[in-house]
């Protein structure tokens, strides 16, 4: 009786990294929704993705730190392994065309060490609060930033957890003018810690400490994630080492 698969797996010829955006109505997709969409887009585009060995072969795709359901993003990352060496520009174009509109591939680079996950140390979030005046948001932000810690509770897979949502917040800036559709706009830099502090945790903290309660659901977009520079408090480009390596190889 056959108990092991007599299959051979094509070796990995290339690893690339993808930067993509989650926009518009597709912000309501979950991480798993994107996974299925990406795997099918790869097949439709005829891209030679590598598969794992074993009875249930899986395409070799590594996902990193995806934005929560309901949150838009301009900075999501995955790593793919191919069985052939492909031009990253062609991969970007064909995957972007194959994915549904709203999952938009921004950049594709050849992967170089160190690993991608380690480079994703902080995120810059844009939070639009409908019906909230910038001055009100500003006062709430000052209140939160004036505290050492601000505990919030959230339901996680392992039950209700209580944790500090203030510590990982590096900066919280309110734009002086409200947006055209009447929202206060916040820019928040949050370091990636465990358990992760998400934009809704920051909003919970603002509600707890300053009663900030927008009358309609906030619109959240991740503008960037990458290496954290403690000197400037800014979020860098996670592809910087790959881009450097690529231009070096071209000269």
């Amino acid at each position, binding site marked *: 009786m056959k108990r092991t698969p007599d299959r051979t797996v094509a070796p990995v010829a290339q690893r690339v990294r993808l930067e993509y955006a989650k926009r518009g109505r597709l912000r*309501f997709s979950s991480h798993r*929704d994107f996974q299925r969409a990406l795997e*099918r887009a790869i*097949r439709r585009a005829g891209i030679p993705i590598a598969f794992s060995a074993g009875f249930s072969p899986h395409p070799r795709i590594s996902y990193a730190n995806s934005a929560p359901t*309901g949150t838009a993003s301009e900075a999501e990352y995955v790593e793919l392994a191919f069985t052939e060496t492909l031009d990253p520009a062609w991969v970007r174009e064909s995957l972007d065309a194959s994915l*549904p509109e709203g999952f938009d591939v921004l950049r594709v680079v050849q992967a170089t060490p160190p690993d991608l996950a380690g480079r994703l140390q902080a995120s810059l979030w844009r939070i639009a609060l409908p019906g909230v005046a910038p001055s009100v948001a500003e006062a709430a932000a000052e209140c939160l930033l004036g505290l050492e810690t601000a505990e919030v509770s959230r339901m996680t897979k392992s039950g209700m957890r209580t944790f500090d949502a203030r510590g990982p917040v590096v900066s919280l800036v309110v734009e002086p003018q409200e947006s055209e559709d009447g929202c206060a706009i916040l820019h928040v830099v949050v370091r990636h810690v465990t358990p992760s502090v998400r934009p809704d945790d920051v909003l919970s903290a603002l509600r707890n400490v300053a009663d900030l309660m927008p009358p309609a*659901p906030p619109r959240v977009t991740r503008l960037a994630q990458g290496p954290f520079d403690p000197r400037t408090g800014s979020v860098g480009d996670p592809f910087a080492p790959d881009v450097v390596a690529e231009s070096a190889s071209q000269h």
Partner: protein
Amino acid sequence: MPIDTHRGASVFPQLEDVLPLVNKPIQYVGGEINARGKDWEATTVRWALMYPDAYEVGAPNQGVQILYEVLNEIVDVLAERTYAVWPDLEVLMRKRGIPQFTVDCHRSIRDFDVLGISFSTELGYTNMLTALDLAEIPIHAADRDDSHPFVIAGGHAAFNPEPIADFLDAAVLGDGEEAVLLITDHLRTWSGEGRPGGRTELLRRLARTGSVYVPAFYDVEYLDDGRIRRVTPRDPDIPWRVSKHTLMDLDAWPYPKNPLVPLAETVHERMSVEIFRGCTRGCRFCQAGMITRPVRERSITGIAAMVDQGLCATGYEEVGLLSLSSADHSEIADIARGLADRYEGSETSLSLPSTRVDAFNVDLANELSRNGRRSGLTFAPEGGSERMRRVINKMVTEEDLIRTVTTAYAAGWRHVKLYFMCGLPTETDEDVLQIASLAREVIKAGRAASGRSDIKCTVSIGGFVPKPHTPFQWAAQLDHVSTDARLHALRDAIRADRSYGKSIGLRYHDGKPGIVEGLLSRGDRRVARIIECAWRDGARFDGWSEHFSFDRWMAAADQALASEPVDVDWFTTRERDRTEVLPWDHLDSGLDSEWLWQDWQDSLSEVAVDDCRWTPCFDCGVCDQMGTSIEIGPTGVTELPMPRVGAGA
């Protein structure tokens, strides 16, 4: 932001504000690969197609996908899809005045010309009422005016639309492909003429064709004891009977060509290709097999082309070969081998819903899982004892079953699932208890064949619900107390088995939902009041155990039938006699009533009937009545055509 209220306007801006507050919002945003969004103004006939269950169940539905594509291929026709919204969203939509919307362009279903609803099961009836109400379409057809869409039902449950007759403008029996085109043509013409005579005139034109049922044109009279006296057309130009539609040449209708790929997770994460329609095995409990006759096969080349085209268009990693009994396709061996050869090494898996109990079926499953994991195989003996299987005309002997599972376990399959029904006509406790001994023999044979003790057998058993247009349409349904008692006795018998019981799993549901399904299946127009009453009391998603309330339905029935000489038992657990006028007698599935009655009598005498594909005709009446014939191969083609470059791999 000012709200756009012109006809066909998108309600997404309002919806967007509530989506962050509901569970799995992705199911409401559309955006599927191969979805269409057409210009409202550039089209003249506009269909909203509803599957009245949650998106995760409705989105993969083949019927809706086929009609969606058939209609959208016509330049001046637009079709969009809508699904039942979960109660969490319904509450918010009512609060904010958001109408039932299509997922394609988020238009109110009230703005469309037609709302076509596909009923695979009767348990979607309350969800239809929710959708109509959310869109501010009057739930009673009689209250609608020229500004409202025509509400038209299709699908298997539409073969007895009487319980929802008050809510429908029309119903269509049988295959929908040509029927939607017929309705579209009449609508276009009538609109072009300036809609003379209002909605009644269009309905009259449709009714006159003899293939669209308009309940309002028929009167139902009752006898004092509650039985139907007769059903009569109101006017001389309305036909006495309405016929089902039968699509003959499946190869000419290769739909869906571009199957939808939802973003949200659904119950079928694969692509389906329908390899034939209809079934003449003659299982007496099976409504699908009775109402979809005759058998019409898609050719091997047609199937191969659809698999190839569909994989390219979707990127799915699995293809299911769909039909009522897929191993019965006359060329299935060549199809299975050909597809397995073609997709070997491409990480594309093939599946065959396997229910036929024979070794050939195992060979096919082996072929399709050449390099994959052999986890579970499913067979459906349906009846626990050989006597029971003669009654239902499912001709499988115990030796057949043991031989089949032995072949399966020997070929490396670890898990065999067996489907049964409880509450079949003439069934006794002993018939059901024999399932336990059958499962024991299966495990015994499996351990011997595989040399392992970790093989498993799962018994799934459901309550039998008699359906219209079957030989069992006259039968008494077993009451839920007796159903539960038999299922519990079976459970106890399996548990008490020390040597084999641990290898046998049992899955069953209690008998109460089956009684409501039975009421809705064989009900008449008086049942509409029960449905409305239950819905007003909060009935939603009746096919979901967490939403279903038996007590609510019984209270609704007590209230709605208070002044009638009939009750729930009358509709469900009562046997009908030959002379009774059945609520669906004026709806023609092609089956000859005399033949059905004879088959019911044969059933009671435990006489089996063969399959007319391989024996002479039994005069069930369908081919004569409908002008159809069996369309099967072999075509003589055994090689699949070459796939397109880069297909699926």
